[in-house]
């Protein structure tokens, strides 16, 4: 076993490029483990965890690129890796050679696009604040995808934005659709009369997708970033976006999506909702229903429910909680019957492997207190995965959370993380695997295909011990998305995956299966 390291001083590449490259290089013969990255504290920690640390990395800075690799005795040396690395990079560069000129700074970019009005920022967190500052100084709206921006910076930047009447959507904001233009991770949806302000990425995606599938459309979808409704930030962007939608003649109805806000922030939002002449639908996922209804707003029980209520209200129909299924009850029962029949009595556990954090959170909340579910984003601290005894019990994971994305892209971009969890966390006791498949801009080219591969692999593995497993999925996507909703559903179904039309229904079906299992079939 040989560990080798190359450091290139002051060579910056973005993290996604490098992470995808690491994966390519790992395929080379003789390479046991490899990491290509910038010398950030996080990456150095990762290098140590992977057992790739060597002396060369001691004086590295976050502006230096490193390649660390572990080889078996026989094969490749680091020079070959470096050559492959350069070749891969050149491939990217070659593509770029045909592109338009790419200026190095915002200032210069504004000379090429003087009437720009939106800046999308996804640089590393420690530099992001400066970039946003400069954008605001130029009176530009900002979508801030980067995470690792401090609360202090977020507050300062949002205050500055509010004073200038500008948007700062983020940090850690995954999705927005402004004037019909999808930004970062957004689905291709029809334009229409419903405006959304969302503090949670995949939650917002699910609502917009559901509205589209019901024949509705979106006027504006404004993201705020996950911390906006915390006490420290005070909901500055939720309020700014809410107010803008109230004033927007193209918007007839407003949907607000967030995890339960801080009480003081909720108060501010309720105050505006009470004044709003336009109907307001609020999904504070698992939040205080009575308080919402007290101000005349419409409360929801799921993301799908929010979309349904918005559409019903807009169309002058009766607004009621949606607790069931799109399919007739009899068909659902058939599906459950068929699924349960395949399982052995000691198959009792749930493996919910989500790429979307809000979808994972919604799943656990919908399953309520009925099950003890371990998670990396647990509903109560004692259910943290660290406390999970020897992989026994129900498990629901947000695979996009930091601990799983160190040194690799988000699982919505690269399904590899989930593929590995299918291998490591699905066993003979697993009864149901529950997954989300998120389509849209920014996402992997074929996330359904990756799930299909994993399911096939898992079925083969369990088949050897004479077992089957129930797989339930929902696809967050539309017919307009490049990955295509229908094609994705068909691919999943052809592998025997039960595909439900929403995350809420997929969770509910899962619930039915477990209820039946508990009754002892």
């Amino acid at each position, binding site marked *: 076993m040989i560990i080798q390291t190359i450091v290139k001083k*002051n060579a910056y590449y973005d993290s996604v490029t490098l992470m995808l490259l690491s994966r390519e290089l790992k395929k080379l013969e003789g390479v046991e483990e490899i990491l290509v990255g910038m010398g950030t504290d996080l990456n150095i920690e990762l290098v140590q965890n992977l057992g790739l640390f060597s002396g060369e990395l001691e004086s590295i800075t976050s502006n230096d690129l490193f390649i660390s690799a572990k080889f078996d005795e026989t094969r490749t040396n680091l020079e070959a890796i470096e050559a492959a690395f350069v070749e891969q990079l050149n491939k990217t560069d070659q593509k770029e*050679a*045909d592109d338009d*000129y790419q*200026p*190095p*700074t915002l200032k*210069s970019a504004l000379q090429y696009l003087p009437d720009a009005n939106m800046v999308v920022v996804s640089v590393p967190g420690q530099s992001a604040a400066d970039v946003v500052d400069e954008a605001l100084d130029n009176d530009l709206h900002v979508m801030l995808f980067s995470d690792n921006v401090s609360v202090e910076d977020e507050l300062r930047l949002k205050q500055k934005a509010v004073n200038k009447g500008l948007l700062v959507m983020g940090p850690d904001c995954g999705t927005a659709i402004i004037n019909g233009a999808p930004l970062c991770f957004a689905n291709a949806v029809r334009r229409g009369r419903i405006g959304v302000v969302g503090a949670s990425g995949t939650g917002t995606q699910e609502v917009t997708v559901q509205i589209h599938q019901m024949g509705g459309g979106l006027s504006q979808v404004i993201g705020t970033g996950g911390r906006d409704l915390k006490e420290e930030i005070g909901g500055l962007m939720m309020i700014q976006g809410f107010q803008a939608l109230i004033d927007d003649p193209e918007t007839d109805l407003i949907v607000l999506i967030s995890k339960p806000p801080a009480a003081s922030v909720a108060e501010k939002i309720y105050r505006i909702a009470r004044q709003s002449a336009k109907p307001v639908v609020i999904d504070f996922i698992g939040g205080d229903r009575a308080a919402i209804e007290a101000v005349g707003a419409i409360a929801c029980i799921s993301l799908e429910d929010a979309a349904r209520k918005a559409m019903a209200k807009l169309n002058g129909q009766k607004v009621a909680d949606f607790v069931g299924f799109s399919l007739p009850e009899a068909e659902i029962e058939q599906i459950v019957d068929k699924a349960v029949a395949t399982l052995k009595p000691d198959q009792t556990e749930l493996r919910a492997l989500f790429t979307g954090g809000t979808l994972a959170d919604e799943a656990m909340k919908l399953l309520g207190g009925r099950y003890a579910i371990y998670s990396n984003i647990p509903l109560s601290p004692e259910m943290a995965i660290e406390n999970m005894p020897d992989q026994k019990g129900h498990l629901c994971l947000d695979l996009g959370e930091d601990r799983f994305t160190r040194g690799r892209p988000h699982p919505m971009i690269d399904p590899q993380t989930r593929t590995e969890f299918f291998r490591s966390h699905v066993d003979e006791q697993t009864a149901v695997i529950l997954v989300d498949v998120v389509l849209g801009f920014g996402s992997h080219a074929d996330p359904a295909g990756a799930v299909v591969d994993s399911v096939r692999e898992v079925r083969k593995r369990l088949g050897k011990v004479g077992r089957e497993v129930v797989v339930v999925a929902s696809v967050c996507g539309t017919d307009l998305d490049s990955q295509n909703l229908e094609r994705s559903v068909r691919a999943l179904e052809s592998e025997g995956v039960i595909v439900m039309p929403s995350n809420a229904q997929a969770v509910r079906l899962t619930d039915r299966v477990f209820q039946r299992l508990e009754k002892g079939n």
Partner: protein
Amino acid sequence: MENLIEKANQQVLEIIQNARPTLIGLGIAGEVIPGMEKNLFLHAGPPVTWERMSGPMRGAVMAGLIYEGFASTPEEAAKVAASGKIRFEPCHHHQSVGPMAGVVTSSMPVWIIENTTYGNKAFCTLNEGLGKVLRFGAYGEEVITRLKWMEAVLYPVLKEAIAIHGPIDLKNMIAQGVQMGDEVHNRNKASTSLLIREIASSIVKTSFSDEDKVKVFDFLNSNDHTYLNLSMPAAKASLDPAGGVKYSTIVYTMARNGTDFGIRVAGLGDRWFTAPAEIINGLYFPGFTMDDANPDIGDSCITETLGIGGFSMATAPAIVQFVGGTPKDAMRYTTSMYEITTEESKAYKLPPLNFRGAPTGIDIRKVVETQILPVINTGIAHKDPGVGQVGAGIVNPPMACFEQALEAYVKLLEDEGLVE
């Protein structure tokens, strides 16, 4: 207070934009270059001792010693050079510039350029052509013979021809050349043709024999780089008046001696900021590789300092092939130079960029901030004396030059209590 910097830079840009380099005649180095003496050898780049001189620079010095009669063999020349009998100073310290090794000795004929707006002069030797030549460190007999012929025939013919013709506005001629596919550093084909066309009748009118005139014509015509030795002093004459404009962050000299790369900044006067010169990424002549190359050498990047040369690559796509590039790369090189410069040239307009002016006025702050380095087109000299040119390509100055200059600049402001 930032105004202080911007104001100074504006003044520098005004000086550069208003410059009018004009060819006014020829002379002998020892007679016209200020401070020139028999035992003073000028060389390219920042100051360097014989001990630290690279192969081609040493070769050029040896050729100069033989040419001036200080020695009759290369071995003898090397001894004289090491003896301390000869003083070495940069061309730039004597209002001169020299391509590659840039060695100027007192008997060499030089072009005389005057910046008629500000009255300052610049000097440069006559180009010897390609192949085994002094500026690439060759010192064989053919080198010396050619230098002697240049002194005896080429020089007097051209001197008389220019006297007959009268001053030639080089700013206009470069502007035309730039529109004809020259960046007047590594491609001078169009400009050389323009020069010959301009002075043809005057050469014919000189008092010399037809045989001499024909040889002069053939010599000028056979060497595409004849014009380089005019574009360089033209750039030098344009930039020199900017040196010493206090508080300016604009670079007014870039030069290399084959060992070090040096820059000078207008607001920091005569101070050189140097770092080891780089090896050139380029196209090597058959039989040669990067291992044969000497590090970057020559004063010719004075053209880039003015915004032509590599900075105007967009207009000279023909030579982007030296680095295996495409015309699109040429555009990209130029476009990226706008990121580190201050204005667009009012005289040198680039047709492929919709007649955008050449990127002018390198600002050390922008170079350090963006880490985008100036792009320089250059020839490549063999690392050993006496071999000559082995290729051509593209090179950057070391970032350290600009970072040191920024350090010194901030220190200056600190010393004056202008920054904390």
